[in-house]
């Protein structure tokens, strides 16, 4: 119950950030807007990687329900690696944007874009830390209570960052300003 309330409140946080981006995405210099800087093929691959991490996460939950610790740890680790690949792609994207002259304070578009995608990146990073911590404590056999439920709660958080990216990918990257 608490986890779903938390995720509901997270919807509001990202709702506010996405709303701000949608309102400001047209506020940029003519030569430094979304159509000039976005690399859709690259971001599509990143999106695919994050989407597949949801599959590996649900396989980890399924393995935990079957009390298969080895497979649970394997899928949790693969999920964390896919998440790290996504975050790495985001860091590369931010760096290339900065080199093209798009800084955080360059325009209202850039500020709202970096805030939104940066917040999402931080959420993915927190998810990776949770996954690796879960693998660590699972290996030591120190997960309190129902192990499957603990893995599922972390899974809910991970799927949430995926559904947020589904929205961001369409509204921010695919729909031109």
């Amino acid at each position: 119950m608490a986890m779903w309330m938390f995720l509901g409140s997270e919807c509001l946080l990202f709702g506010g950030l996405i709303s701000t981006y949608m309102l400001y995405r047209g506020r940029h210099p003519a030569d430094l807007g979304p159509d000039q800087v976005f690399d859709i093929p690259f971001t599509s691959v990143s999106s695919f990687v994050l989407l597949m991490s949801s599959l590996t996460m649900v396989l980890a939950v399924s393995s935990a329900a079957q009390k298969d610790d080895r497979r649970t740890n394997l899928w949790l680790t693969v999920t964390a690696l896919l998440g790290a690949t996504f975050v790495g792609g985001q860091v590369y994207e931010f760096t290339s944007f900065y080199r093209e002259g798009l800084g955080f304070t360059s325009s209202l578009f850039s500020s709202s874009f970096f805030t939104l995608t940066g917040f999402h990146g931080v959420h993915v990073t927190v998810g990776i830390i949770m996954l690796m911590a879960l693998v660590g404590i699972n290996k030591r056999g120190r997960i309190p209570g129902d192990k499957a439920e603990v893995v599922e709660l972390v899974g809910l958080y991970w799927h949430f960052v995926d559904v947020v990216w589904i929205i961001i990918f369409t509204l921010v990257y695919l729909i031109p300003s």
Partner: protein
Amino acid sequence: MSTTADHVEHADHDHGDHGDHAPEAHAHEHKPDSYYVKIALILAAITALETSTYWVDFGAFFLPTLLILMAIKFVMVASLFMHLRGDSKIFSYLFYSGLILAIGVYVAFLATFRFFAST
């Protein structure tokens, strides 16, 4: 690989062992891995279709297509991967009420900017 029925039995057994947890927490039916792989393949295909709009001109269908595909992916991940479909309805209400409120925030933002931009 265990069967779906085994998984359900397993889930029930877990609840029996840990009575201090809410029974609705993961009372949903656990599916075989192949089921989730099929969903992931469908999601990947939808993502490929979405990405194709970057190269292929969909004309007037561009925006509705993207929004519908986005909604389908969202609902699939939320209901099938997050198991909202099999869980207690209250979880769906909590999650989707946050989403509806978020859309309300956007509409309120948009209205504010439209109606009070010149004042």
